[in-house]
């Protein structure tokens, strides 16, 4: 059974997604346990795969028994097993959390909600595990379509934000498809390993050049890289809280994974560094994204919207690490993918908990939140510390590596941008903490008693445990970051990179 793990991790949630509508029509309450069970399977599988990869290097799985390049291949290596573990852990935790939040936000649509949620996770897992460029597109569309549906159901401006997302997302996916088509035109294959073998002879071709640009732009849109990020803040703000907690940590990160895969595995790193100066462009765009995202985040008065802009800024960090194209920078980017998954997961879960209790996420209602929800808010504090980069949390280490990478690249502007962006993070997160820890300033005559006692009003346990798990994830991935680095990440970095 061990060699079947790569397919089981995709098929288990997929089959469950088909069962949910049938079961749910009969009894709605069975959807939640089924979804949790279905997402526990990928968790086990991905951990098994990571173990297998760490023991014996990469391996591949041939779907339908057809060997590549004729059949579709699942190629497992350090890079995608690392990302797979992140996806499966975060999606599992968020699904546990979903129970109460879905019941309060979408009481009559529980069945299709869980179907789409499972399909989305399936799409993300399938995209990551696949070693076939076209298969990636198919799973990309599965995850995008379910994501459109899940986001559009949200409140207020959600449908309109989703419409923009659909337009942008379709352009992105189509550009990806076009890039793959161009590569197919000159090589005749769709398999990533085969492409990597055939492409280096063709770097002079204008077709390959165009293909590279289209792939970059397409994935850039999916990743919400500045200036292609316009769809993201609206979509993530209005989505139901479970959905934004699932999408924000995972979706853009999987796109970032795809970018690393295309840039450094399908193409040789030299192509995007020398033939098209894409890495330089990428790192400059990333630097702008970090500043712009953070500045916009400061201007927001809604926690979820603020966090959405923060996603744009954090994508900048990852893109900077990729764009630096050196050992330290890429390590920083990969660590940041891990860090972001837990941190954004944690803060969006907390935002969901606040919406659950206060029915809104406006910052002006946040007074006394530390006393009302002490456990939730302590997790939020850990999340903010990680976002800012305070030592024991994982955010510190990823930022440290990015900083060292910028120094190694000799680019002091990036160092400055990283520091300024950290300062901006401090500004917008401490504003939230400050608002949440104090009472609403009231004139003295309005007070009945000098210090009102605020009753503790915590969220139910099924929401509390996932929040705490995420916070623990932040701390653990920070404490063990050097071990993660030496056991997994060093094997991902392409050999040709300088420190």
């Amino acid at each position, binding site marked *: 059974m061990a060699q079947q793990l790569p397919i089981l991790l995709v*098929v288990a949630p997929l089959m469950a997604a088909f069962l949910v509508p049938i079961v749910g029509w009969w009894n709605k309450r069975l959807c939640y346990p089924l979804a949790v069970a279905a997402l526990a399977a990928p968790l086990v599988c991905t951990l098994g795969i990571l173990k297998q990869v760490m023991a014996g290097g990469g391996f591949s799985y041939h779907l*339908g028994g057809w060997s590549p390049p004729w059949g579709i291949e699942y190629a497992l290596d350090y890079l995608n097993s690392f990302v797979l573990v992140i996806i499966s852990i975060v999606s599992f935790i968020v699904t546990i959390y979903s129970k109460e939040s879905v019941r309060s936000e979408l009481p009559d649509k529980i069945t299709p909600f869980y179907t789409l949620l499972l399909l989305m996770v399936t799409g993300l897992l399938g995209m990551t595990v696949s070693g076939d460029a076209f298969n990636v597109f198919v799973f990309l569309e599965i995850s995008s379509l379910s994501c459109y*549906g899940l986001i*559009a159901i949200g409140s207020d401006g959600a449908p309109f934000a989703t419409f923009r997302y659909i337009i942008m997302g379709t352009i992105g996916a189509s550009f990806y498809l076009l890039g793959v088509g161009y590569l197919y035109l000159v090589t005749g294959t769709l398999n990533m390993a085969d492409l990597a073998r055939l492409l280096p002879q063709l770097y002079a071709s*204008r077709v390959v050049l165009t293909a590279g640009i289209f792939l970059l732009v397409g994935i850039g849109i999916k990743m919400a890289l500045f200036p292609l990020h316009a769809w993201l803040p609206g979509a993530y703000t209005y989505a139901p809280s479970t959905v934004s907690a699932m999408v924000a940590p995972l979706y853009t990160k999987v796109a970032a994974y795809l970018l690393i895969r295309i840039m450094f595995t399908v193409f040789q790193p030299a192509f995007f560094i020398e033939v098209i100066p894409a890495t330089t462009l990428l790192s400059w765009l990333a630097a702008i994204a970090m500043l712009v995202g953070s500045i916009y985040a400061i201007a927001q008065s809604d926690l979820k919207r603020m966090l959405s802009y923060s996603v744009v800024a954090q994508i900048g960090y990852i893109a900077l690490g990729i764009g630096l194209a050196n050992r330290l920078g890429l390590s920083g980017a990969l660590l940041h993918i891990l860090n972001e998954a837990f941190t954004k997961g944690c803060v969006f879960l907390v935002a969901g908990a606040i919406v659950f209790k206060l029915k809104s996420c406006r910052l002006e209602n946040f007074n006394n939140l530390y006393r009302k929800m002490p456990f939730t808010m302590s997790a939020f504090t850990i999340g903010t510390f990680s976002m800012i980069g305070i030592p024991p949390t994982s955010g510190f280490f990823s930022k440290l590596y990015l900083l060292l990478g910028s120094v190694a690249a000799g680019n002091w502007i990036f160092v400055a941008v990283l520091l300024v962006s950290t300062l901006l993070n401090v500004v917008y997160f401490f504003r939230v903490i400050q608002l949440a820890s104090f009472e609403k300033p009231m004139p003295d005559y309005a007070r009945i008693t000098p210090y009102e006692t605020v009753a503790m009003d915590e969220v139910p346990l099924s929401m509390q445990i996932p929040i705490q798990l995420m916070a623990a994830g932040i701390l653990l991935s920070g404490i063990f970051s050097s071990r993660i680095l030496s056991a997994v990440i060093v094997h991902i970095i392409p050999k040709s990179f300088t420190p």
Partner: protein
Amino acid sequence: MKLIGLISVILCGGLLFFGVTDFPGWGDPASPASTHVSPYYIQNTLADTSVPNIVTAVLADYRGYDTLGETTVIFTAAIACFFLLRFTRRLEPKERFYRHVPTGITLRISHGGKLPVESEAFERIDSLWSPHDVIIKTTCRLVVPFIQLFALYVIAHGHYSPGGGFQGGVILGAAMILYALSYDLRSALLRMSEKIGAIFCATGVFIYAGTGALCLLSGLNFLDYSALATVFGGDPVAARSHGIFAVEIGVGMTVMAAMIWIYYNLSSAGKHDEGL
């Protein structure tokens, strides 16, 4: 916004133009696309699967996993439309129209009004109902069974001629949509209720994934239909052919149900009451 749009369109066009100048000539048999992977399919399909239609064989066998993904995409779309549009609360329409069949008199009942007693003589009609559609109704009623028969032929004959589960499924769905268009949504819902549609939709794609999982359980890789030979007997080549057929049926079911379901939800904006 307009300027940015125009600039990006021109940039994209320029880039495409730049790329095309280096393309191999159109229809060149020696181009890499025609010489690297695809000759294998052309030469071995018949021996491997005994399916003469190479596209069907590649679609459902060599790259069968893509097709599973494709079927899932259409399933996702159907579920997403249902999720977004469907009202589960029963909404009372503002006005209802009833037609007394023997006399042809139309009753208009405003919100909260008392409805006529359930009887054969009264027929609920839409607000956009027009009386002169007997030709359309009769023609469509005559045509629909033949369309459905043709669709079944397309599914079943996909091994030997253009067609297959997807095309057949769309035609089956289109037949039902034609019925709904020529009558009204309520009569279509009587023929095929939403619940049946949902179950068909999920079952079809479940058949697909289940065929793959069956191969997995009998010890071979996912979607390796030759494993079906060890389960049901027969030689691996015939098993592949039958596996492809099973999968095509699954695809057909899902696509049919998904198309009808999306149509139901879109045409009535989720109310399933007064629709086109």
